């Protein structure tokens, strides 16, 4: 069992605190996404787990053993780098078998393992190719295969799919998740792409300024954000300042009574109301909060209506074929937030 434990990890670069007392328990075999904007410390955390950086304080435990002072090359990790870092002087099979060659594996074992992994990443028979002969997606797969060749205790990936174009990236997200599930290897992926995290992860860890904002299952983080930052970072949402008092939310000059299903994370006082665009309901001007249509964006599968209320931009997402079709910029409408789908966070 190779569960991973991060205990009070801190990393300073000079006066800059890249990671501030981060603690985390990752159960064996889980797929974890470290998610956050650039500079949030997610890559630093990954490099500390790999042993490529020394922590200023705290411990890294793999399978119950303290690895904090163990040098990188003795940690038995697999890693995929952002630049992929494939070795140009070796061919595909030699790249994949490199971790075995370093450990003194014999030629036949190396060749067999390389072939096995090439099958796993769906590049059968490509072992003799040179790295520069491969496409971007193929290099990606070779890097993944190389990272897995020693059956690593933990499989680390640093923004592995960022260099791929959008459709290939989506495809590789699914494939990476399937490979991880078939092997059951504890996996940590650093990404700034929230959709990538929601697609692949068992556990999403949202970070900002070197601190974990929230750790939870993708849908928990999506539906039940811990704070305004998480609500705004995961998925698209309408975020409005509000006040909570006497079982009601005071927002945009309206008092909305809390109903069952609403998630109210603040007992009373100033807070933020988060409502997803699909839960903003448009009605006639007479009902609801008065708003003026600013822009209508038709995406085919859905239609986004952007409105201005008190200087706040609110987006409503409507299914096609609804009344929204007739809306034009400048039209006056009323809006309300679907009961049970209102989230109040600090």
């Amino acid at each position, binding site marked *: 069992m190779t569960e991973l434990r991060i205990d009070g990890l801190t990393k300073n670069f000079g006066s800059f605190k890249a990671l501030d007392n981060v603690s985390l328990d990752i159960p064996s075999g889980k797929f974890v996404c470290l998610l956050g904007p650039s500079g949030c410390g997610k890559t630093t955390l990954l490099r500390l787990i*790999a*042993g*490529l950086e020394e922590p200023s304080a705290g411990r890294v435990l793999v399978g119950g053993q303290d690895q904090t002072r163990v040098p*990188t*090359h*003795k*940690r*038995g*990790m*697999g*890693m995929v*780098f*952002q*630049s992929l*870092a494939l*070795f*140009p*002087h*070796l061919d595909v099979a030699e790249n994949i078998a*490199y*971790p075995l060659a*370093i*450990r003194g594996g014999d030629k036949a074992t190396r060749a067999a393992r390389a072939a096995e992994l090439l099958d796993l990443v769906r590049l059968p028979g490509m072992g003799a190719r*040179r*790295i*520069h002969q491969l496409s971007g997606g193929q290099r990606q797969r070779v890097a993944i295969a*190389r990272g897995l060749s*020693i059956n690593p205790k933990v499989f*680390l990936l640093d923004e592995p799919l960022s260099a791929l174009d959008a459709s290939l990236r989506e495809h590789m997200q699914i494939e990476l998740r399937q490979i991880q599930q078939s092997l059951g290897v504890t996996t940590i992926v650093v990404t700034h792409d929230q959709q990538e995290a929601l697609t692949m992860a068992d556990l999403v860890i949202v970070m900002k300024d070197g601190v974990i904002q929230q750790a939870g299952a993708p849908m928990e983080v999506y539906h039940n954000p811990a704070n305004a930052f998480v609500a705004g970072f995961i998925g698209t949402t309408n975020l409005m300042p509000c006040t909570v008092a006497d079982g009601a939310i005071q927002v945009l000059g309206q008092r909305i009574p809390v109903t069952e299903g609403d998630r109210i994370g603040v007992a009373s006082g100033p807070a933020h109301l988060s409502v997803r665009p699909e839960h903003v309901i448009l009605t006639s001007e007479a009902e609801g909060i008065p708003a003026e249509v600013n822009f209508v964006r038709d995406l085919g599968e859905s239609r986004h209506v952007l409105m201005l209320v008190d200087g706040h931009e609110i987006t409503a997402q409507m299914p096609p074929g609804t009344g929204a079709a007739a809306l034009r910029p400048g039209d006056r409408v009323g809006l309300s937030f679907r009961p049970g789908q209102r989230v109040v966070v600090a």
Partner: protein
Amino acid sequence: MSGAPSHTVAPRWLGLWPAVMLTLFFLAPFGIMLAVSVAKRDASGFYEWGFDPGSYARFMSAFFAKVMAVSLSVSLAAAAICVALAFPFTVFLASLGHRMQTLVLVVLLSVLALSEVIIGFSLSTLLSQTAGIGNLFHWLGLIDAPRAYTPSLFALITGLCYIGFPFAVLVLYPPVSRLDPEIVEAARVMGASGPSAFFGVIVPNLRGAIMGAFILVFVFTLGSYLLPQLLGRSEHWTLSVHITDQAVYQSNLPFAAAMSVFLMLVALALVGLASLAGRDKGAA
């Protein structure tokens, strides 16, 4: 439609410039040298045009074969030592901060401003019995009495390496600093210790650059004729010293020219071999 694109950066005739320069300053002198090498020696000190392969025949002797062997081994040894020192140094240099790198490179470049004469005399003083490091070793109790380390093969190679080192670093620095640091980190994570990442990943990825530095120092030291006289014994005199001797002191220009032609052919052959060995399998 329009013809070939006409907005090239430089006009085409500008390409003639290097060709003219090459002809004027390399091919023409080389032609003259070839002609002189088969000219007849004039006893009064110069030469008469003609065809006399005697100079080449004279060169084919055990004595000059040995001189040739000494020249090549001295230069090969100097080049090998230089690169062996310069490569790890450059890898380390590239890992330093930007300001430190600039500082070190400026210091290295300033070494190039020193003439071979100054370097030669400084080293012969430093290695001498009366004022050299022998006194320091004696004072430290390492040796019984101060001794001279020059003239010797050691002094000669030291001098040649001193001159070759900055060139080797300057040739190695651009490719070394461009090497993706993640490649080395990848090797480390995948189980390579420091030395095995160095020899298994850094060295093979920079094979071309290492060969380039080797060839440069080799060719550069092959032409050195002052240092062997200042720091070496007569048996360490390289072919370049003998060429100078024949041309300047013996007034035998045809023989000097013949030796020069031969030295150049051998050097070319070795450079060709080396660059063949340095060709990267992965490069397309």
